[in-house]
């Protein structure tokens, strides 16, 4: 029961992340034409060479991560206590990858591209919050394992 709140928060935040990254992925894949630039922002970030990793738009990577986080956290809510530790570690690990990569992307926006896309910043913040929740979740699982 202790770990219900952080898990529920992760479910909610993952849903928000899916919304944000879906919109960004759509704008990358469908609305790829950036010919007339608004001042610094998503257009500039989208136009930068960091916007794609190979043939994957960066927001698609985020979308995949949020979908995985949502699936893991929903499963965690209804899973048997025995499998909670494994699921929690998977959530924590994925959130850590997400937060590190988001930090790198935010660094690129600040120092390489020198423009912020607020959708990307929102996604980074959501991933940061998911990471915090995953740490809380991990702690509660650790405490539960202490309890007799």
């Amino acid at each position, binding site marked *: 029961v202790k770990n219900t709140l952080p898990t529920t928060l992760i479910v909610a935040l993952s849903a928000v992340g899916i919304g944000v990254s879906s919109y960004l992925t759509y704008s990358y894949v469908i609305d790829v034409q950036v*010919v*007339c*630039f608004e001042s610094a922002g998503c257009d500039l970030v989208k*136009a930068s*060479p960091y916007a794609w990793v190979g043939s994957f738009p960066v927001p698609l990577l985020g979308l995949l991560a949020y979908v995985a986080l949502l699936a893991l956290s929903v499963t965690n809510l209804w899973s048997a206590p025995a499998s909670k530790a494994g699921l929690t*570690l998977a959530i924590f690990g994925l959130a*850590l990858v997400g937060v*590190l*990569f988001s930090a*790198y992307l935010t660094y690129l926006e600040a120092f390489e591209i020198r423009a912020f896309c607020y959708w990307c910043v929102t996604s980074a913040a959501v991933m940061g919050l998911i990471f915090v929740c995953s740490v809380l979740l991990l702690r509660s699982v650790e405490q539960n394992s202490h309890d007799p």
Partner: protein
Amino acid sequence: MNTLKQRTALAILFAVAAAGVLIFTSYFSARTHLASPPAQANLPATAQADTVASIPDAAPAAPEPESQTKTAVATEVPLAIPTQPAKGNLNAPVTIVEFADFYCPYCARHVRETIPLIETDYIDTGLVRYEFRNLIIHGQPALLAAVAGECAHQQGAFWGFHDAVFERIFGDGNRSDSRHLEADDLKQIATQLGLNCAAFDACLDTYEQTYNKCHDSYQTCGQDTACAEQFQGCLENDPMVAKVFEDQASLSTLIEQLPEAEKAQAQRIGTPAFFINGHILIGAHPYAVFKEMIDTQLAKARTQR
């Protein structure tokens, strides 16, 4: 408990490694992207079809030692072309070259909100030369407006015409107000500005005749890439179109001369785009951004004296 801690440590290790791989892949992918020819390759097919004169190919990134040399001299290469429409002193310590399209709403906003401030603070004080060049993004209507601009420039009346065309197309800046100007609308603007109407009309009529002639042959030639190139080559027979295309060709030269670190920004160029003493700025940024870049270049110019 130890097992959980050990597994947590392992998860951290895996996560850091996975993030490292992702970051490395992202960085490597960006570097590869930088080394590939930009511009046309990045324009989707729909945009290319709509672009009368697409951006000229820029050369792939040069080998490191050569590009470093280019970077070192980037700011020393004269940006200004004396025959271009420009405001300010030709020998001003800072030259801003703007690439714009008359149908770009952000260009219109820049004209409305930012150029007047740059003019007051830097152009009128002899510190900045502000040069205009065409970059056609919005197809035939934009080319017609650009040609009309060149016709006005022949009479030394570019800037008044430039401002009037933006105002006529975008009105108070609301996108929904934008409308296509026909040749007659452009002629009317020239008349209102007191230009030599006979000369202006003849200049625009010559273009229209060339355009119609080229368009007729274009319709029968298959409409593939080779055909589009033929169409552009045909249009270049008009001297004003040739000038517009020269403007666009100068873009790739300026991109090649950019410092290596700034070439990333030029990968998917759009309008408005600015070259400020050889440094790129893409987008209708607020005046504060221009001020900062201009002041930096002015400070550099002072120390070089």
